[in-house]
Each structure stands twice: as C-alpha cells, then as structure tokens.
C-alpha cells in the first residue's frame, strides 16, 4: 500500500522539528531513519560566546519541560570548574525543584500519550493534576515554566515553611491521583490494547544502543544518574530506581508513573532533612582553566554537560547531550516490526522533546515510492 501524502503549504509538517523516514511493506514497518535539525539553534556555539553567568539562562532554555535540569547540570559543571561548593541547603532546594520538575514532566508525557491513543479525558485529567505542580513552582520561584531557581553557587530563593505546607498538601492529592492512574494503565482494556506489546525494546538493544531514562528502565536496565553518580542531595536520600520488565510502551508508561510516586517521597524526605543555612556560595569572577563533566537524571534520562574553560570569562566549549538524543537510536528496533498504526505512540514513548509535529516519511520498499506524512496525520490515519 503506498501513501500519497505530500507536504502542502498548510501542512503542519512545515514546522516540525524532526523527521522519521519509515520504510513499510504494506502495514509493517521495515526500517526507520531519523532526520533531525529542525529546531537546531546552534546553542553549543552560542554558549561559547556568552559569559558563564549569561550562559545559565541560555542553558535553561534548551527545553521548556526539563529547564531546571539543564540549568542544574550547567551550574554543576561550571561550579566544578570554579571549585565552588554549593551550600547544603541549596543542594536540597535544588533536589526538591528537580523532583517537582520530574513530576510535571511525567504527568505532561502521560497526558500526551493518552491523547495519542485517543483518550482525551485522561489527557485532561492528567494535565489538571499537573497544575498542582505548576502552582507549586510558581509559589516557590514566581514562575510556572522556567522557575530558574538554580544559579551559579546555589539557588536564588528559599523554600520557606509556608511553602512546605502547601507542597505537602498538593503531594497528598497527587499521590492519590497517580495511584488511580497506575491502576488505570494496568487494567483499562483500551489502554492495554494500544500499549501492551507495542514498541518492544529488548534489554540487549537498550544496552547496545546506550538508551537512557525511562526508555532504558522500561526494558529492565537500572541506569539512573541519581543513584549511580549522585548529585545535589541525592546521595543522602533514600529512593528506588524504578524499572519494569515489559520492554514495551506500557512498561515505559508505568516507569514514569511509578517514578512520580518515588519523586513525591523524595520531596517529602528532602523537606524533612533540609538543613538550615546559606542559599548560595560566592562565585568567583573568573573561572580557572580546566574541563568538567556534569550529569543529571533529567525526566527523559541522563543529561550530560561537558564544559571546558580556557581563560576569559566565556567557556571554550560546551557540549550538551540531551537524553532524547541518546534514545533516538533505540527507535529503530522499537519500530521495526510494528504496524504503522503504532508509530505515533511508539515515538511518543521515548518522550521526545519535540513531540508536537514530527514528520514521518513512509516508503514502500516494493514500489520505492516515498511520501511524507506528518505525525498529526499519522495519528489520525493510524488510530
């Protein structure tokens, strides 16, 4: 079956940030190729042209959903270079903000996934609950989306006792709701029909292709930077690394939902254990030469920043490796053998950071005809 789907002037595909070329034989996917670059903004080069302090704001804007993790990772790398030790209270505050971000990111993802499989009610309810977290972020930092709490040397604001009360109240509500969502995902027939056994990534492939985050953990690979290479206050907190053995879309969804529960516990622990003290350490005006590597466990997986300083007030080189980048190679084994109908939800299951308007080319290997389909179109056509 060939698909005659050109990109027209009004095609949403024109704004898409990535392009997957899917080869099909009839309904079955035979091969996948990824083409990136649509939102390539040259950030690595830009960071080398900005001072370390200004670079923080740019790094926070690499992504709107995992902004805190980008900022945090950047700060950690530069703090390593400068030999600055962040005060303990700030480390705990950073941890709390990072976990709040994880919760809202996972809720966002689950809502999007529900929307992908046509379950709009679930999407609305999930995003309603996400508002609880957004309100907390606004309460603490003044911003819903870019809290920008972290700064070189510490954090900018304090988490005050009155915040703690509100945080606990919201966490209680979230806990109850997420428990229901976990039940739903494990029992609802239509969800299971669309997610179980779909987009399988074998453990071996996840390891070979260096997958990260819930994508890897859904295939039984217990890799979590918070546990393996602790940063902020994670070294002092007790938590589980959530893995699933299902290896499919459902497993990755359950990893994320269960991680929300873990994050709730981590926040509670962190609030309990948070010591009094300074919020930030003095940051020297000059950063000495050297190189540093910082890693954090962003909601989507391992995020790595490599920063090299070589004189001056600007970095010589900043290298950012985002978790989605690491997971793209894993899409191929997930998609090969699937049907076209499953492509949207499988793509969504790695929680790509450019979810709205992906573009897919479908190539029929028999006729060689190739057409371009937007993800929106694919979703519609394949549901």
């Amino acid at each position, binding site marked *: 079956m060939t698909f005659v789907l050109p990109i027209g002037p009004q095609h949403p595909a024109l704004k898409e940030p990535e392009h997957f070329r899917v080869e099909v034989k009839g309904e079955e996917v035979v091969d996948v190729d*990824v*083409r*990136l*670059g649509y939102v*390539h903004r*040259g950030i*690595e*080069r830009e960071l080398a042209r900005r001072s370390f302090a200004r670079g923080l704001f740019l790094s926070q804007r690499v992504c709107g959903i995992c902004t805190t993790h980008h900022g945090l990772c950047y700060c950690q790398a530069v703090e*390593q270079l400068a030999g600055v030790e962040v005060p303990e209270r700030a480390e705990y505050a950073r941890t709390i903000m990072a976990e709040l971000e994880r919760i809202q990111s996972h809720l966002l993802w689950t809502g999007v996934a529900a929307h992908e499989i046509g379950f709009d009610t679930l999407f609305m309810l999930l995003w309603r609950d996400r508002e609880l977290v957004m309100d907390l972020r606004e309460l603490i930092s003044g911003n819903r989306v870019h809290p920008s709490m972290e700064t070189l040397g510490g954090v900018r604001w304090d988490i005050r006792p009155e915040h703690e009360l509100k945080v606990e109240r919201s966490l209680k509500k979230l806990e109850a709701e997420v428990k229901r969502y976990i039940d739903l995902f494990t029992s609802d027939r239509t969800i299971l029909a669309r997610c179980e056994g779909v987009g399988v990534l074998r453990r071996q492939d996840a*390891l*070979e*292709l*260096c*997958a990260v985050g819930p994508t890897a953990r859904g295939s039984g690979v217990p*890799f979590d930077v918070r546990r*393996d*290479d602790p940063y902020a206050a994670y070294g002092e907190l007790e938590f589980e690394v959530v893995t699933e053995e299902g290896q499919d879309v459902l497993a990755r969804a359950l990893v994320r939902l269960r991680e929300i529960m873990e994050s709730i516990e981590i926040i509670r622990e962190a609030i309990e254990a948070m010591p009094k003290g300074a919020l930030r350490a003095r940051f020297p005006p000059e950063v000495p030469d050297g*190189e*540093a*590597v910082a*890693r954090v466990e962003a909601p989507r997986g*391992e995020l*790595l920043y*490599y920063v*090299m300083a070589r004189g001056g007030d600007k970095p*010589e*080189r900043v*290298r950012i*490796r985002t978790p989605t*980048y*690491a997971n*793209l*190679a894993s899409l191929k084994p997930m998609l090969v053998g699937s049907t076209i109908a499953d492509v949207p939800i499988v793509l969504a299951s790695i929680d790509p950071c450019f979810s709205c308007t992906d573009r897919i080319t479908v190539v029929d290997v028999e006729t060689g005809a190739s057409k371009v389909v937007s993800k929106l179109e694919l979703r519609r056509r394949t549901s």
Partner: protein
Amino acid sequence: MRAEEILELLRDYIVEAKSVGERRIFATTDAAKYRQALRALKDRGFVHLSTITGVDLGDRMEVIYHVDCGGIVLNLKLPLPRESPSLRTVTDIFPGAVLYERDLMEMLGVRVEYHPDPRRLFLPDDWPANKYPLRKEE
C-alpha cells in the same frame, strides 16, 4: 569499580590521565590505541557510551569519548591533527555511537571511516559542504 581500577585497566592504552574527585577521569589516548581502550572498557561490562564530544582547540582537534563506568565518567580524549582529522568508527564496539559520530562529522569535519551511515544529522540539506559550524574561524 573505583577510579584507580579503571586507570589500571586502561594502563596500556593511555598516554596520561588525571582523576578529578571520585567519579571523573580525564585520560588521553592516541590514534593507535583508542579503539583498544574502548574495547577493553566494553569487555569489562561498561557498555554505556554517554556521548562523543568534538573540540577545536586551535592547534589541534580533540575527540572525547565519555564512557559511563558504573557511575564514574571516563573522558577518553583523542587528539587529532587539525588538517584532515580522521579516525575510525567505534560503532562496532558501541553501536550507540552511530548518531554521535555523524554529529562529529558535520559539526567539526572529522572524517569517521567505516561509519555505516555517514549522512548529515542536524544541518539542513542545503548547508554548504565544507563549512563546519564548530570549527574556529581563521
């Protein structure tokens, strides 16, 4: 495994090394031995290559393989001459390197030989052929 043990493992393949803190190692290798170093790591069970970074240092290029060794980040640096820098792919050792090497090729102009799929990754199709965005301008 601790940092000292990793350095011991790689003793024959690296020229110099430096530990920073407990969980960061910066080691330099050379074109003859880098693959053996990576192979030794993989055989030891360190299968996670976090990423590959390319840096234009002015007088030379540097390709850094960042390997996760059970929580320790080993940064294996491979210096390359600035004129026509080239090296061999490591996708046979770390299949997950496939995209990072493409990135290296298009951003810094490092030729990666035997790469299974040496196409552009991020740059638009009509980007001029010999311009490498992360190279320093003369």
